[in-house]
């Protein structure tokens, strides 16, 4: 057991897989010599050499297209898109190429690749470098979508993503890179499509992802300590595949559902899960499911402003307390 930052967990996860399988290669902008702009890939060039770990030009379409072509022909590429906002300049690959090639070819073409990308707010970078865009990917049939909240999950889910035979978009939260956590020694391989109940509770189910997980946990502490409300906090971890069994199981016990989303309000994963839950568990619910989200606005840059828009523990506490009428 070692204490590792989320940032170092990324490098460890990649290194674990590259050491295991020569077909794993890794490339992106400034990822090799410089170890990445978030310093999440430091040391990989030294360990695996310049053929397997490569710096690219600023050509996101070439990066993802090349990753796809390599994946189709027998390699297992990991490609970095520096900020998830930049998925917009190579969206055709994510939306139209990776996820449709296997289906359109009736199973002939495979696409086992991982796109790692820095997601989320908190760095005061403004509207084009702070978005949470995991819902862009969840919308697209044929992708898998993962967003870990802890260093241990980073290693395990990244390994699972690399070993997965389908295209996986792997969202690393920029504001979690510096966070530390215990990571078991040795090889770690987690399972995609599994949510985790991080805190049991009987009064309501609270779903969260990535940076919202520690905030939901903090809110749960306050709710218990100050309001006698015991919420069950579920780290969704994987949007596709989606672990609805764990989620519906929890709602079946608590009869109330809250989602805590960093993405802007419309058409997020919260809307999807709420819609599934009401369709399948309507009569189990004691009250309306409530989504706690960032408001539907572009993100402001200023620290004073940015801090006001993301869901905070205080806002989570307040929303849940009021909705439960206590």
């Amino acid at each position, binding site marked *: 057991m070692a204490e590792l930052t989320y940032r170092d967990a990324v490098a460890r996860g990649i290194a674990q897989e590259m050491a295991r399988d020569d077909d794993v290669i890794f490339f992106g902008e400034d990822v090799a010599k410089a170890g990445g702009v978030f310093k999440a890939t430091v040391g990989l060039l030294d360990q695996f050499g310049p053929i397997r770990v490569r710096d690219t030009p600023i050509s996101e*379409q070439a990066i993802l*297209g*090349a990753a796809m072509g390599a994946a189709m*022909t027998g*390699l297992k590429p990991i490609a970095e898109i520096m900020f998830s906002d930049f998925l917009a300049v190579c969206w055709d690959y994510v939306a139209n*190429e990776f996820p449709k090639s*296997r*289906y359109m*070819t009736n199973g002939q073409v495979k696409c086992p690749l991982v796109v790692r990308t820095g997601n989320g707010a908190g760095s005061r970078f403004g509207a084009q470098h702070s978005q949470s865009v995991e819902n862009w990917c969840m919308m697209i049939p*044929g992708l898998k979508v993962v967003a870990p909240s802890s260093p241990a999950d980073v290693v395990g889910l990244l390994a699972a993503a690399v070993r997965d035979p389908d295209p996986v978009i792997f969202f690393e939260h920029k504001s979690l890179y510096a966070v530390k956590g215990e990571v078991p020694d040795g090889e770690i391989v987690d399972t995609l499509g599994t949510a985790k109940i991080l805190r049991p509770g009987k009064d309501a189910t609270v779903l969260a992802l990535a940076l919202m997980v520690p905030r939901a946990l903090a809110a749960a502490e306050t709710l218990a300590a100050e309001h006698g409300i015991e919420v069950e906090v579920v780290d969704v971890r994987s949007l596709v595949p989606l672990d609805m069994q764990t989620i519906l199981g929890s709602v079946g016990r608590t009869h109330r559902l809250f989602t805590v989303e960093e993405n802007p309000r419309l058409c997020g994963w919260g809307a999807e899960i709420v819609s599934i839950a009401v369709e399948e568990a309507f009569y189990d619910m004691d009250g309306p499911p409530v989504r706690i989200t960032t408001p539907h606005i572009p993100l402001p840059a200023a620290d004073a402003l940015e801090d006001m828009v993301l869901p905070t523990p205080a806002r989570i506490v307040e929303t849940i307390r009021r909705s439960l009428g206590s």
Partner: protein
Amino acid sequence: MAKKTAEATVLDRSNDDIGEAVRLELYRKQQVIRQAEQRAYDLFLQNLVKGTSHLSLGQEAIAAAFGTAMRPGDLSFCTYRGHAHTLARGVSVESVLGELMQRDNGLMRGKGGSMHLTSVEHGVMGSYAIIGAHLPIACGAALTAQYKGTGDVAVCFFGDGTTNIGAFHEALNFAAIWKLPVVFVCENNLYMEYTAIHEVTAVKHPAADRAAAYGLERIVVDGNDADAVYRTAQAAFAKARAGDGPSLIECLTYRHSGHSRADPAKYRPEGELERWKERDPIKVYRERLKSFGIAESVMTSIDQEVARMVDAATEACKAAPMPPEDILFTDVYADGGWAWRN
């Protein structure tokens, strides 16, 4: 190389770099493409081809020449106008027509349609319908070949209009800096869909005039001359296999039909089509073979053999069932299914 004589009738075949066997193959491939595509057009008129389809009538020499110059292991990346390049790798006419007719015997059992012909077992790694998308993808396939040291080449076909989209630029630079074994083949047929390429392009040769921007040689070839294309392809493949990186080849050609089945091609200036038809690649090539002393009957028997094959394929397709409902939900994911939740 054939010696130029005033008569041009008797040539020293043994001395030719291409040789009779390959020439007959080039001829046959062009015939297969021509006849299969003409059949696709007839079937469309009978309302048996569904969706869209994009023919290469008039452009056959390019696909045939590259298909002939490629070796097993080399990989093709095609566009929606990809019947020709798919057939040129030896994929059966039946499976191509079946896909156009959206039948269960189609290459992808109707799941992909005419714009996405793919036959991995023949090295046809897909036909791509979003302009430019496959240029970077071909780079990736070339990267695998380079990484594994297979000596294989990725060949990426596209049109003149495709040179103006961003992915073209990114792919060319990417391939050049990593010296990837990929050959980019621009079929300049003078038009994008309905707009003449010169109206929307800052240079005369949309591909060749940009080669220098990627440190590449400027290559323009007569795309209606299968021999010329074949020789150019071989040189590019040799370069790629030697580790000397990509090539960008502009082939000048012309499509005889409209852009797609919906297009009567009224935007063409009068006489243009007729002028190009005089240089019909198959006509040109038949004359060439004759000039090399190959008997007319040899070509005629190829024509007939191909006709019989296309007829048989047509009948098989007409008799083939529609794809069954159960394939709707297969192969979204590698586990064979489509489950996105538990």
